[in-house]
């Protein structure tokens, strides 16, 4: 029962994305911001509880452009900056502070359907890019991957509000630094392509 419900939901999301295919040539630009939470980073397994899997909530903001170049798929180059909180830890009776990462990333998302459009619609997406995470004494500059699900609403012509939840990771050899992100964005349609109203 649960499995068929999940499959149905997945099919509806795909159908929703495909239904928002829209005309080829549309371009929109937007900004976004929200929360970014480290997952399974610098955890202590001796006193581990499920809540420890998520680190202190950080922030993320950035800009993106959606280019509807081919039917069904929208390509979305993006640039984002993130900031994570410092972490205090008592070791040997002394409390130390380890600085949180500052991150910069750019890349390209492939969105099924269009994030903009009329009504309320869902759109799944995957992306690849380059992410740089820096803090004192440590720098990670590697390929990043992400996938997620967005919800788009158009409150006015040419305007779109998007809420997205995504899972992102930076590959560090055989392992990765992982994050969950929840953002809200606002996009404005610049040009309508062939077949737009």
């Amino acid at each position, binding site marked *: 029962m649960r499995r068929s419900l999940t499959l149905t939901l997945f099919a509806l999301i795909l159908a929703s994305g495909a239904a928002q295919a829209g005309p080829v040539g549309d371009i929109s630009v937007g900004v976004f911001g929200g929360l970014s939470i480290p997952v399974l980073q610098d955890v202590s397994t001796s006193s581990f509880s499920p809540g420890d899997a998520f680190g202190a909530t950080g922030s993320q903001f950035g800009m993106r452009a959606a280019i509807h170049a081919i039917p069904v798929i929208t390509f979305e180059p993006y640039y984002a900056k993130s900031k994570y909180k410092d972490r205090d830890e008592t070791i040997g009776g002394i409390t130390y502070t380890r600085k949180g990462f500052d991150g910069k990333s750019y890349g390209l998302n492939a969105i099924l359907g269009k994030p903009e459009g009329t009504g309320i619609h869902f759109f799944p997406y995957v992306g690849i890019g380059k992410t740089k995470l820096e803090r004192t*004494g440590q720098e990670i500059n590697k390929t990043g991957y992400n996938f997620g699900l967005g919800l788009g609403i158009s409150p006015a012509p040419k305007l779109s509000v998007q809420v997205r939840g995504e899972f992102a990771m930076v590959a560090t*050899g*055989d392992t990765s630094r992982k994050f969950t992100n929840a953002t809200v964005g606002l996009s404005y349609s610049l040009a309508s392509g062939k077949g737009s109203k």
Partner: protein
Amino acid sequence: MRRYGWTIPALALGLLAAGCILTSGQIQVSFDLPNFTANSATGIDGATIDLNSQKEYQDNKEKLKDLSDLAVLGKFTNNSSSAVNVEVWMTTTPSSHLTESALMNDPTRVKLWGPFQVGPSATKVIDWNASAQLFTTAGKAALLSEAKGDGNFSLYAVGPAGVAYDFGVANGALVLVIDVGI
């Protein structure tokens, strides 16, 4: 949809095929160090570390891929009237050297960390961020090799060669953040 609809699921499947990359994490392991003293005239103390004594390390040793973050922490007290630059050296095979010259003659010695300067007759708790910057490239590589190997090595705190020094380290700890595939 028929022509391009496969793109997203295919990309998602490719992402999931990464497997181990997804199912991984960074685990922090702290090793308490005994109090060290180091005196250019009377000798030095060493501490032999067996990483296997820590359950967190033991549980994850087979899945260890890399060292993500490192720090030598503690309270450094300079008993001398001139500033001292503290260095931490390791011997990749356990040892019990009592003098700096004996340590420097050990063929398995590697400079791990430092220098960390402590002012004349001063006590200073090192900052984690500053400590993370003081690891040498060779030291990181040696520590990773030990972490992936038998996990048994010795650490020494010493001053610069040829200079008089007298200092102690209390509440010391070696912190390793290890990258593990889960």
